[in-house]
């Protein structure tokens, strides 16, 4: 509302100003127009002008309004003034004729209409407009910029900025994408590509050669694992088989071999029979094979005279004719069988064979007979070995093969990898058993006694040690305890093998953990502790009863004792292997030594006393001092030998506040300076700074 009124006012003023301007313009225009109308008035005008110029001589332009005194013809329209009328002259008043005429009503109306119409508002001041524009622009831009605020804030808070801030992330483009549009142009490139293609090297896409791909394909992890497992299994099986074969090969028992062989034969026969039923042709072939094998076997010299029967016959042949004959027969048969087959009829063959047999037999028999004089080395060896083998095997072998077999079966069943572990275990067990057997044998003889004696020795030595230590001082009680502990340990450990027993002696020194050490320290300064405990108690009483003086006195005494104790505690001397020798000492060294001796001689209690004195002084100096404001002579007599009364002193004594307790209050051997380190304090954070950091910034 107010703004509107103001505007209206302003508009009115503007109008007024306009009208004045118009008048002025009229004034300026006047001479031109007047010259035509009135020539007479020229003189008067000049006169007027002259007057004006004279009037304006004194520097101030005077605007003299001519007074309208009486009616005259000459009325200057410029001199019309509304003075005295009391109200403003309006335009309509000017228009109003002396008499009201109806013809002017229309004009009047028009005028009123014009008046009623609101004048166009004046444009604002340039400055103001600019100001408004500025404001608006500022608001707009600040609004647009405000969306960057968080980013700016973040950047301001960031410890480090790297420009450009919005860095494009390095994109990883596969090389084939890069090379997609690229083609080989130069001859060199082409050549290279030719070579690559020739070798089937992938240029673009898969980047893996077919071989690699194949290998990748072939080798999935599962497959690889399976394959590996298979291979392992095969290898394991092979090794088992080999081991088994080796073992079986080593077995000397003929019976066993016989059984095995028989079993094999039986198996072969069974198979053969089955084959006969199924496939006769194959069976025939097999038969031939079997036959051939048999022949081969028979052809070997094995069966000449190595059988049990043959051997017994060979022994008997010397005395028994029948036996000799039987043997001969056997040999003959052997000969016959081993002879190369000729394409002759069987009968002829037989005849020839018999003949030859007769020829051949005597040699062999003779040989044997000749050999009977002396011991037959072959026979002997055989016998011996047999006997030995039997003797050795009897106690040991029955369990061993069993175990082995068991282990074999286990091993075969279990998947690879564990075989070695199992084998190791078995070996260990076996060795253990053996050793235990050995030890069992040895045990009854002396183990008990040795153990007993050793333990007794340990005990006696420990006793001796403890005695010594007891003699030394009370401080070593702890060690004593340790020793006792170790004794107990030793008794406990008697069941352990003998080898460890020598160790026990060294235990007490060697087994010392940090805790033990600390314990030792505790022991060492237990006296101090004991003394310091009363101090603490004293403090407590002080707090409770507020009886300061007594407590402090007591404390001081204790402090003294304490310190004495501290420095006089006997510490164990070191047992050094190399004791320093003072043989090769130079002159100055000797001098020094002399000095040292003197010093040592004079060192003593005064050190402690001095220190305590120093500490007392330090404590005194650091204590805040009381301010004594008593003025002697005020209110009483003063002079030499007269002291102000106690009451007065008490009244004017300003007691210093009790400072915090000293850091070295409970440390008798230490003086810690209570002085502030001003230089360092300058670098410290002050409370006010901290407050500003936490709240203002």
């Amino acid at each position, binding site marked *: 509302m107010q703004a509107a009124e103001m505007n209206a006012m302003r508009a009115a003023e503007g109008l007024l100003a306009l009208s004045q301007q118009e008048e002025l313009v009229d004034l300026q225009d006047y001479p031109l127009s007047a010259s035509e109308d009135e020539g007479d008035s020229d003189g008067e005008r000049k006169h007027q002008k002259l007057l004006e110029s004279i009037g304006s001589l004194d520097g101030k332009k005077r605007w003299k309004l001519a007074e309208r005194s009486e009616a005259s013809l000459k009325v200057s329209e410029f001199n019309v003034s509304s003075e005295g009328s009391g109200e403003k002259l309006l335009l309509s008043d000017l228009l109003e004729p002396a008499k009201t005429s109806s013809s002017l009503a229309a004009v009047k109306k028009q005028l009123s209409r014009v008046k009623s119409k609101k004048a166009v508002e004046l444009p604002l001041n340039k400055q103001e407009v600019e100001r408004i524009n500025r404001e608006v622009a500022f608001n707009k831009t600040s609004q647009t910029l405000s969306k960057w605020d968080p980013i700016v804030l973040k950047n301001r808070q960031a410890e480090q900025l790297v420009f450009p801030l919005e860095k494009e992330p390095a994109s990883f483009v596969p090389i084939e994408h890069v090379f997609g549009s690229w083609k080989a142009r130069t001859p060199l490139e082409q050549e290279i590509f030719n070579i690559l293609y020739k070798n089937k090297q992938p240029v673009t896409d898969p980047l893996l050669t077919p071989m690699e791909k194949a290998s990748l394909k072939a080798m999935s992890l599962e497959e690889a694992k399976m394959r590996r497992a298979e291979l392992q299994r095969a290898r394991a099986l092979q090794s088992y088989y080999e081991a088994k074969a080796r073992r079986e090969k080593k077995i000397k028992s003929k019976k066993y071999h016989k059984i095995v062989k028989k079993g094999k034969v039986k198996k072969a026969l069974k198979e053969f029979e089955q084959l006969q039923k199924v496939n006769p042709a194959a069976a025939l072939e097999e038969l031939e094979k079997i036959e051939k094998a048999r022949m081969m076997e028979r052809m070997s010299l094995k069966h000449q005279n190595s059988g049990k029967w043959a051997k017994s016959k060979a022994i008997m042949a010397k005395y028994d004719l029948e036996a000799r004959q039987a043997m001969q027969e056997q040999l003959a048969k052997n000969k016959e069988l081993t002879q190369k087959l000729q394409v002759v009829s069987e009968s002829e063959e037989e005849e020839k064979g018999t003949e030859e047999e007769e020829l051949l037999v005597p040699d062999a028999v003779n040989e044997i007979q000749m050999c009977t004089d002396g011991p037959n080395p072959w026979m002997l060896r055989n016998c011996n070995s047999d006997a030995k083998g039997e003797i050795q095997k009897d106690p040991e072998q029955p369990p061993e093969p069993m175990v082995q077999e068991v282990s074999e079966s286990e091993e075969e069943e279990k998947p690879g990898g564990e075989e070695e572990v199992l084998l190791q275990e078995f070996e260990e067990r076996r060795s253990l058993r053996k050793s235990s057997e050995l030890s069992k044998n040895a045990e009854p003889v002396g183990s008990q006694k040795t153990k007993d004696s050793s333990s007794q020795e340990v005990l006696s030595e420990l006793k001796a040690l403890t005695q010594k230590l007891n003699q030394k001082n009370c401080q070593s009680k702890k060690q004593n305890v340790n020793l006792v502990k170790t004794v107990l340990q030793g008794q406990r450990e008697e069941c352990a093998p003998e080898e460890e027993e020598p160790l026990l002696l060294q235990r007490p020194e060697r087994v010392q953990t940090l805790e033990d050490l600390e314990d030792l320290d505790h022991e060492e300064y237990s006296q101090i502790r004991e003394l310091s405990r009363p101090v603490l108690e004293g403090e407590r009483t002080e707090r409770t009863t507020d009886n300061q003086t007594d407590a402090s006195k007591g404390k001081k005494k204790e402090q003294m004792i304490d310190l004495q104790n501290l420095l006089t505690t006997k510490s164990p001397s070191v047992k050094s292997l190399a004791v320093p020798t003072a043989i090769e000492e130079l002159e100055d060294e000797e001098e020094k030594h002399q000095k040292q001796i003197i010093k040592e001689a004079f060192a003593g209690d005064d050190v402690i006393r001095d220190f305590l004195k120093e500490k007392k002084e330090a404590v005194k100096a650091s204590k805040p001092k009381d301010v004594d404001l008593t003025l002697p002579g005020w209110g009483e007599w003063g002079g030499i030998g007269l002291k102000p009364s106690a009451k007065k002193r008490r009244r004017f004594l300003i007691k210093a506040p009790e400072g915090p307790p000293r850091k070295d209050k409970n440390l008798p051997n230490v003086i810690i300076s209570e002085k502030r*380190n001003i230089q360092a304090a300058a670098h410290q954070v002050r409370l006010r700074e901290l407050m500003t950091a936490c709240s203002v910034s």
Partner: protein
Amino acid sequence: METVPRPGKGVPLKKDKLQAKRKKPRRYWEEETAPTAAGASPGPPRKKKKNLELRRQKLKNAHNSKKSWSSKKSQVTKKSREQRRPREQKNLREQKKPGSQQSLSGAQDPFPGPAPVPVQKARKFCRIDKSKKLPHSLPKTQSKLEVAEALEEEISIKAARSELLLAEEPGFLEGDDGEDTAKIRQADIVEAVDIASAAKHFDLNLRQFGPYRLDYSRTGRHMTFAGRRGHVAALDWVTKKLMCEINVMEAVRDIRFLHSEALLAVAQNRWLHIYDNQGIELHCVRRCDRVTRLEFLPFHFLLTTASETGFLTYLDVSVGKIVAALNARAGRLNVMAQNPYNAVIHLGHSNGTVSLWSPSVQEPLAKILCHRGGVQAVAVDSTGTLALNCVPQGGLRLMAILLPQPPKCWDHRYMATSGLDHQLKVFDLRGTYQPLSARTLPLGAGHLAFSQRGLLAAGMGDVVNIWTGQGKATLPALERPYLTHRLAGPVHGLQFCPFEDVLGVGHSGGITSMLVPGAAEPNFDGLESNPYRSRKQRQEWEVKALLEKVPAELICLNPRALAEVDVISLEQRKKERMERLGYDPEAKAPFQPKPKRKGRSSTGSMVKRKKKVLEQEHRDKVRQSLEEQQKQQKQQKAKPTGVQPSALDRFVR
């Protein structure tokens, strides 16, 4: 059918995805399960007759911790972006997917992504107490704290991951069952170890120039030694290459390397001299006179000298300025050691006390009464050096608040002292300063040294005894020595070589380099102290070290206290500031009247004007104080006094 997924040419993305989704048979080169973290490597065989192993070093195992920093930052920013703009991230991921999934050959990465780190391992390296909640603060601070926390987490993970690279194991020496290791002689050890390690045992027979003191450089590669009668030499002791050998024609009391092997400080009879590795005298520091012992604080670049006159002087080597000269008021100083954890200097005195010093405080930080006789030797355990490195400086103050506690494993600090009362004591430096163990030695130990892994060596006459603890940085058990060795003469200097299982002993007969299995840290930080560094690397390191120099005023007993909030009043702060600067920076300058001309600037008028101003000021002050008083009175009056106490109130119970 082809089962191998391969990068299809021009195959749209969808198809690719489908192919990837389809379950394909596992290949033999693919792992069945996710790979577990590398298991514990099989330990060395323990049951051998003489288990003896000297650690060998490999350059490739240099553990570089700084590299991890740079890569980590980017990860952190990525993480925050993920939180802020999930949509964009998703887009990115989609774009990346095909590329990351398929390689050129079609084979898949069997171990995609970074190696997983078990939580337990990472926790070992974590320095933040996660259980503590962050203090309430404005978002800006909050975000900073979060970033710091994320950073810390990353660091711990990186450290846990790179722990794998610390492949070297410390050496050890084990006797037979029941055999005392102390009986094993150096010759036996030399016989048992490999040639390279055996070469580290050697003797230098230098009988002419008296008892020797020696020092190893921080990398453990170089050694310098000085005889009492002026013989000074520096050499690369591994290759036995002599760098320089001079005679300074003056008694030499101590020698020490500065920050690198290129500079050595020699405490000569009168003054302190500094030579380079060519033997050229660079400086003669006359303000440090009659120096008996030298120490170098590597992180602060401070050369500390203890003199006969009883002064402890800190010389800043980087700028050549004497930072502080403190009067110990305890007579001749000839026992000094530094605490590597907090760079505090330990001085041993003839009255049996050990005092701890910092350059910024004029009096000892602490005084410990250790022995009845004078203190002969002091040594401080070297553990905790890592903790010092971790103290953040400058800008990361807030982070410092976040890191209140170092891991527990670093928190073992021991000091060994030996006195004229023939005692050897090991003190706890963690605030209590109480002896943890003590032993009486037949002849008091004149020299002590701690190795990196906490072995304690003591030189007693011509014998060196070495004690060991149960593990790294544990209290050495003084019951029985780990090794003993007899030398050609009385021991005069003793130091363990860093990163090598070697103990250097200087004695009147020369120098002996002993083999001490298990003495040194097996793994070194290649960026911090690399024994194999080239000249260029050394120069680079030098620049970096100088940039990271710790100001001398930061040396205090508890370096962690620097990260704590200082609660003092404003007045006290002002006072301290005045004390620190030596003047009051906020004080108003006293009024100085301007000189006037025409005879009006006589002395009398000047004084008058001054007086006038002074009086005016005084008047103002008085007026102000009066106003304040009145205000207070008014306030007191305004306070309701309540009901007037009546005389009968006294009967109220």
